[in-house]
Structures are given as C-alpha cells and as structure tokens.
C-alpha cells in the first residue's frame, strides 16, 4: 500500500484540490471538466480499493483489517457523495467542495498507509 499507485493517488487528490483552488481564485463555478476530474479520481480510488483488498487477503501482516477496509470504502464513497451533493450546484461553493474532497482523498491515502503499517509499523 506504499507503492507508486498510492503516490499517484495522493498526487491526483492534490491536483484536483489545487485545480479547484485555481478555479475558485478565478471565480469559476463548478463545471464539467472539474466533475470529470473527480470521476477520474474515483476510478483511481476504485483500483486502490481492489488492489488493497487483494493485498490484504494475501499478506500475513498484522494490522487493523476492519479499519483498513472501512477507510478504503469511505474513500470510495466520499467523492460520490460530493458529486451527488453538488449535482445541481453551479456555484463556487461546488468548486470549494471539490477542493476539500481532493485534499481529503490524499490525507486518507496517508491514513490507509498508516493502518497498513500496523501497530508496529
């Protein structure tokens, strides 16, 4: 869970966050391009979830597996919830929400890695 794909997901979350911040600064409401960015982030999270569960099932490592799966499912659900909450939102608030979601995704990848490392990691 500490490989290049996790790094890619962290970078993607930061990129969505920064992109949203730029859109906020130039006073742009939430548009189709940014929504597409969130869907791309969601696709990466889905791969991360599948890869994470596959690795969990093949390792003997001691870590909080319930918490690990919970974080992965939460990561998958959060951007979907944000897309639903902003579905009719054509304002800057929608852009700010996507900024939060991008940054939270990156933070959650780091948290997943901490859980994966276990109590002795």
């Amino acid at each position: 869970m500490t490989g290049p794909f996790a790094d890619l997901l962290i970078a993607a979350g930061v990129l969505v966050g920064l992109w949203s911040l730029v859109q906020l600064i130039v006073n742009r409401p939430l548009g189709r391009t940014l929504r597409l960015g969130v869907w791309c982030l969601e696709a990466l999270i889905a791969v991360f979830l599948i890869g994470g569960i596959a690795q969990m099932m093949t390792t003997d490592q001691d870590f909080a597996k319930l918490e690990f799966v919970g974080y992965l499912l939460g990561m998958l659900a959060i951007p979907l919830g944000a897309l639903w909450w902003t579905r009719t939102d054509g304002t800057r608030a929608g852009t700010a929400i996507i900024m939060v979601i991008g940054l939270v995704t990156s933070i959650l990848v780091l948290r997943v890695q901490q859980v994966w490392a276990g109590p002795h990691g």
Partner: protein
Amino acid sequence: MDETRATHRGFGRVLVVIYALFAIAATARSVVQLSTKFSEAPVAYLLSALAAVIYIVATVALARGDRSSRRVAMAAISFELAGVLIVGTLSLALPDEFPHASVWSSFGSGYGYIPLVLPAVGLWWLRRTRPQHTSE
C-alpha cells in the same frame, strides 16, 4: 423562508460537506472502538460515539436549513463547542483519565484542530444566515 439566507446555501454547502466528513470519520471510529475494544477505555469511546451523533445531527440540520432545523443545528453545534472545550481541557489536565484519544481530545489535535475551529465557524454561519425580522 428566505432561501438566500438558508444554512445550506453558498458557504453553507461547503460547511455541510465538512460536517458530513466528520460525521463519517467519528462514526466509523466509534463503531470500531465500541465493537473491538470498548472495555479498554469506555469513557473515551463513549465520548467518540457522542461526538459522532452530534456531527450527524449537525450535518442533517445544516443540510435541511429550515427554521426548526436551525434550532437543532444551534443546539448541536453549541454542544459540540462545549464538548471539544471540556474534553480538550480535561484530556490535557488529567491525561491519565484519557489514555485513549477521542475526536475531541487535546482540542482535536489528531484532526488538525478542525474539531475546535468547526463549531466556531458553524455558530458564525448560523448567526450570519439568521432570518431578518422586519418591523411592521
């Protein structure tokens, strides 16, 4: 009611999302704690569960945004502020009584102190979106 002053418009939409994230985080944390290690620190884990309930109530109330929901949001967020101040102070003053962290321990330091700032922002937002009464 005046929709432009509703709690779920403008910045309120972002606030609802942040409260929802804390509701998810606190609920997930307390479910794991209560189901796997409740006996280790029942007070801290019950406080986590209480925080989770407060965040859920505040999220729903802010998202609904009608007049009665404003009162519920005000009560929940005021309780949240009191909770983070009391638990934060006690966890620093009596660390032996709080060996396991809750969301509000050390004023929410484990969550970047957002649990301390969030209720202040929530109360400010409720005040800012307060319906205006016009005199006849």
